[in-house]
């Protein structure tokens, strides 16, 4: 078991889709939401995904395919 903390960012057309619900059903990962905010322009959710590392990778790849941007929790770490 591993866990990964990520930020999902949703464009407006995805804000109403139950992406997180579906990722937890399609893949053997547990999703645990810690913080979120949504407005008419954009939404973001900070969550933890727990499961086998390869399964987490597949779950993230699927979410990205749906149009969600997935970033590490700490923001970009490559600085100027």
């Amino acid at each position, binding site marked *: 078991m591993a866990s990964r903390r990520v930020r999902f960012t949703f464009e407006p057309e995805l804000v109403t889709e139950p992406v997180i619900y579906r990722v937890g059903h399609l893949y053997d990962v547990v999703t645990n939401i810690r*913080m979120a905010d949504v407005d008419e322009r954009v939404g973001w959710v900070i969550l933890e995904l727990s499961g086998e590392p390869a399964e987490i990778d597949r779950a993230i790849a699927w979410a990205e395919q749906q149009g969600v941007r997935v970033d590490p*929790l*700490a923001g970009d770490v490559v*600085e100027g």
Partner: protein
Amino acid sequence: MSFDRALRCRECGREYPLAPIFSCEFCFGPLEVAYDYEAMRGRITRESIAAGPATLWRYADLLPCDAAYRVDIGTGFTPLQRADRLAEAVGLRTLWLKNDTVNPTWSFKDRVVSVAIARARQFGFEAIACASTGNLANSVCAHAARSGMEVYVFIPDDLEHGKVVGSAVYHPTLVMVDGTYDDVNRLCTELSQSYPWAFVNINVRPYYAEGSRTLGFEVAEQLGWRAPGACVVPMASGSLFTKIRKGFSEFAELGLIEEPATRMFGAQASGCSPITTAHQAGTLNFVPQKPDTIARSLAIGNPADGYYALKTMQETGGGAEMATDEEIVEGIKLLAETEGIFSETAGGVTVACLRKLVESGAISPEEETVAFITGAGLKTVEAVSGDVADPLRVPARTEVFSEALAERRRAAAEPAGAGAR
């Protein structure tokens, strides 16, 4: 002595002991250092600060590390220079430049790294690491060299030669990652969880970030113990922007200056402007971007402190602006030609945005403004090298020189851009 007390979650307020951690276990919010201001008051005075060294260590009592662990290569207490010629060019009455290009590795990153490496040594780390496109890497390598610590620096494989050498000369373990910017991001986030290293901007980020407050401290002290009317600050992660404001607020909290009314303005490149774009849309929720700009030092598409920078703008009645690559080059040249400071692209962003902020009326001509110039121009010569003064080429003969000079003067006197520069 340091008055750091705990780490506190910026979202839910939960507190944690001072450790190499960066996010709240409960809500995953970012952690920030909390201080015992009560104990500081009275012990930190204008006099005690003024009696300190002419480096950022004059604020040692305000930093979240034991100064006994410091690695001092002369960072900080850089000049605050009155800029009348640039003020006139942009339409301001009073403008100051905080010239942070003169730090030991020629950028403000020496401030954050000074604190990060001291804290890392205090924690007992034997190795320090970072991922960077230039300034941060240069600073981490230099400080590590001075301290004798092991150092691991991760860079994208498409960097300019000069930036690579600026780190390599200190002989770190330099890792060039074959992959995209996002790949380097992911790799370093993973490595930070599996190697026992102090990653300056990951696991010791709460301490690291505090180093930027010294820019606020210095400006207030150099203005004669007061805060300015407005600040224009380049933004990448947005951390520097929020910490300058924090520096002013803390000085007021300690009774060293009056409550500041400083309006905070952020500057980004159009090719990477998640924070400015969100500000202009009137929201605190930014949309991450794929960076595409010559201002690589500001190219953070997913800014860790973007939300807090936007809140700072809101709270201070400030704002944000962005500059195109062309405007950035113009900004670098304007700063050089009017004030004699050669800055890297980030300074071009700052000057270009300053000009636009005055033009749009966001900053009024009467407002005393400080612009932060955070990195030196020799780091990014590529940005301007095709677009600067064209030399007069002459053989070593007086009469040929005189003729060439007369020719150049005639050309310069011709109207509407016909003259050579």
